[in-house]
């Protein structure tokens, strides 16, 4: 277990370093940051001063290491546009996005796991067909369009829920449905196919021949094994949902990190963009790491891999 854990953590660190470098250089290549700060009418003297002040005159590698080192300490530099430290904005915006992400993943799980189990118990039955239809439709649904159609129905036509904003829990209902439905199909399909595999295995047949009740077999014996890979997938889906929050938060005007990312991109605020890309990808790396470690702990066979 220890060897596996050390290997897995090393991989996570390497991926983290690689992705952070990628996001830094990708945006670094986009032009002169000093001009971006001062605007097009700046004089050469001003530009030179800003370069020295911000350290843009140093070699790129040094700048990257310096940026990463500060970022690890929670210091992401100054926002070009807002003229305040990036971490101050992130402190306000990130909790909103994580709250939305948590609500959505819970919604997705509550929908996907019972549906997946029900579908697996009777493959090709009516329930299975319905679950499959929901999943196929969910994968094809453009989330921005789904969001707008929900607004048009529930906020405009019936006026049950607010159109946009993030002040009360009622503002989170529609975004949670949209983001959760986006994450649901993959989880449902995996639960279903794992459950079918496990239900066909020898130890379930033994349990049946021992005369255990179906409920006991399904929930105590089968589900426990079928659910293990779902943990990894859920962690990964949470990471994808953070990226998906860019679209959903923009539609519902939620003051979260996703909307901040879009705003920063639109106004060329590179330090904020870099910080959000870094935070989102590191969350993914960390969550998949934790899920893999949890998996290895639950399922000793995985540690050999």
């Amino acid at each position: 277990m220890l060897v596996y854990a050390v290997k897995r953590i090393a991989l996570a660190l390497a991926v983290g370093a690689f992705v952070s470098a990628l996001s830094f250089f990708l945006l670094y290549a986009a032009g002169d940051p000093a001009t971006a700060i001062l605007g097009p009418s700046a004089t050469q003297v001003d530009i030179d001063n800003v370069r020295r002040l911000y350290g843009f005159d140093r070699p790129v590698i040094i700048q990257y290491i310096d940026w990463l080192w500060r970022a690890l300490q929670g210091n992401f530099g100054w926002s070009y546009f807002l003229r305040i430290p990036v971490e101050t904005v992130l402190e306000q915006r990130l909790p909103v996005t994580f709250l939305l992400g948590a609500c959505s993943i819970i919604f997705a799980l509550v929908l996907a796991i019972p549906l997946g189990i029900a579908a697996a118990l009777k493959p090709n039955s009516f329930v299975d067909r319905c679950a499959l239809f929901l999943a196929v439709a969910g994968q094809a649904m453009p989330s921005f369009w789904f969001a707008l159609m929900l607004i048009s129905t529930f906020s405009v036509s019936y006026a049950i829920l607010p159109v946009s904003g993030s002040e009360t829990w009622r503002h989170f209902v529609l975004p949670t449905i949209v983001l959760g439905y986006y994450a649901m199909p993959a989880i449902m399909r995996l639960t279903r196919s794992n459950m079918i595999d496990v239900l066909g295995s020898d130890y379930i047949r033994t349990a049946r021949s021992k005369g255990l009740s179906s409920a006991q077999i399904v929930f105590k014996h089968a589900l426990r094994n079928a659910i293990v890979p779902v943990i990894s997938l859920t962690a990964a889906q949470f990471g994808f949902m953070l990226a998906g929050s860019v679209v959903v938060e923009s539609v519902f005007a939620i003051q979260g990190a996703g909307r901040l990312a879009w705003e920063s991109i639109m106004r060329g605020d590179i330090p904020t963009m870099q910080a959000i890309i870094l935070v989102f990808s590191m969350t993914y790396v960390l969550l998949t790491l934790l899920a893999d470690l949890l998996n290895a702990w639950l399922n000793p066979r995985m540690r050999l891999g």
Partner: protein
Amino acid sequence: MSTELDYRTIDDVSGPSPRTVLLRQSVRHAGLMIGLVILGVVVIMALFANVIAPHDPLAQNLDARFIPPFWMEGGSWTHIFGTDHLGRDYFSRIVYGARISLVIGISVACIAAMIGVTLGVASGYFGGYVDLAITFLITARLAVPVILVALAVAALYGSSVKTLIIILGLLLWDRYAIVMRASVQQIRELDYVQAAKIQGCSTLRILAAEVLPNLLNNLIVIATLEMAHAIILEAALSFLGLGVQPPLPSWGLMVSEGREQILFDSWLIAIPGAFLFILVLAINLVGDGLRDVLAPDSRA
């Protein structure tokens, strides 16, 4: 003994050819057939857009703005889907929009396939350090938030149909690489590949003649699913203002342009979004159906 009986015996022994079996299975697969019909309609729309569209999709007519579609009050058959905020014929824009979605979907699926297949095959066939390095690349790629990076790059390097295709093509190769790697790892151990190796065939020949033909089925399935993925991402980027630029009629952009009319003319949003949904649904149905027919063991 009649000759008729002889034929039947021969037929029983040899059975229908694999191709016939495949065809029969495809025709019986309802999802695949529905998907293919819808996809066919959209492809015809895109190919013959100039014949089908009754109006110029870019021609503005400020005297005829916000005409509702024919099934609503005030609608007419001259503009069956009505007109938008600049008085452009909505149906013609939808028809031309099919071109953009399909061109982007197909090109992205192809570019991503080239990258993904190369990486996946190399990683699965050579193993060792090559595999380690490529697995690392795949893991790193999965950690990159696609929409965010695509948006950022489009904002910095300009967003046109061409840059969109390149950006998405460079991002969406992961599934190809993962599946190709797993299948090549299995194929590599098969007897005929080993036999080719012993005979002294070059690596390139083994890959091209023995390994690649076996990957084709899986490749088609993933390409279909990635095409759907690319179309939906293009629409999302265009919706956010960093994809296809006006006045081009991209369905995602049309939803975005109709957004201000959500209170009174919500059909401006409903129609292009519905086309997007149905197209992506159809492509996914085709992909899932092909997987059932061509590569049933790879079903997830």
